[in-house]
């Protein structure tokens, strides 16, 4: 843990690698003409990833389930968003639901 050079190497490679992953998309797209259909497919891919991120971060923690409070909070936020409630309300209601349930001892 106190191996500073190794720590710096790890952080450095993670930084360069992460930037490369982010930069790869724009760099590739600028070289090739991407047809309309493929653009729709790429947009759909981003939405699929984000939706999966919602599900995994709402329902799982590590390799197991996330308990009750967090999914309940996300559910409340999701329902409000579906009913086109203001964004602020969605966020605050989701957090408040989870926090309130935990206050009551719900995991």
């Amino acid at each position: 843990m106190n191996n500073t050079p190794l720590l710096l190497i790890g952080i450095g490679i993670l930084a360069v690698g992460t930037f490369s992953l982010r930069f790869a998309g724009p760099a590739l797209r600028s070289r090739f003409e991407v047809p309309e259909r493929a653009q729709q497919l790429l947009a759909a891919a981003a939405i699929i990833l984000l939706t999966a991120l919602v599900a995994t971060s709402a329902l799982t923690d590590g390799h197991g389930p996330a308990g009750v409070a967090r999914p309940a909070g996300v559910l409340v936020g999701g329902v409000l968003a579906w009913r086109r409630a203001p964004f602020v309300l969605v966020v605050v209601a989701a957090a408040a639901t989870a926090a309130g349930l935990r206050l009551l001892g719900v995991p």
Partner: protein
Amino acid sequence: MPMRSIWRTLDPGLARDIGLVCLADGVVGLSYGAISVGGGLPLWVPILLSVVVFAGASQFLFVGIVAAGGSPIAAMVAGLLVNSRHVAFGLAVSDVIGGGWRRWLGSHVMTDENVAFAMGQDDLKHQRAAYWAGGLGIFVCWNIGVVAGGLAGSVITDTDVFGLDAAFPAVLLALVLPALRDRSTRTAALVGVVVALAVTPFLPAGLPVLFALVGLLFYRAEKPAVEVTR
């Protein structure tokens, strides 16, 4: 698009929403800084990671592994795995980011949140405004939060008490919902969700989300709008 016009393009409602997400990210940054220092890492580690890596989930993972006595190289590999989804984001928002120097800076400030904000806008001008305001705003708030949290130490280590762990999925859900009203996209996304959840118990962090891309097999691109209306 000149930078100045980004701020003029942002309508007050969107600016407020982005501001809220920036604020929430700042609080999470606070907890990340505090957790890192509380775990025994020197202050410069969480701060350096936040500036040069700037990807929350991978940073939590990195400091978690290193603080637990794991190898920084293993932490780096795990971090890269978690960040691999940015390739798909970059392919989707390439036009939004723009070319030249913007591609360099814009790539670095790419996050789940500002990609989702951009995808929720109707035209390129508003997509750019949302992407840039979100990316730069989150970068500033996140880093301020990390420094403050690192200095404060073990004041706030558990943002779960405030329910912030529920707020973030809810933010992303609210942002992708409009796109999910399209039936084909929704089907593909739901298949992706099922696959990602099914493989979560067996795979390291970051990979399950990538497996969700299997859902693309169920996606049918719309015909161009002109043909449909005729």
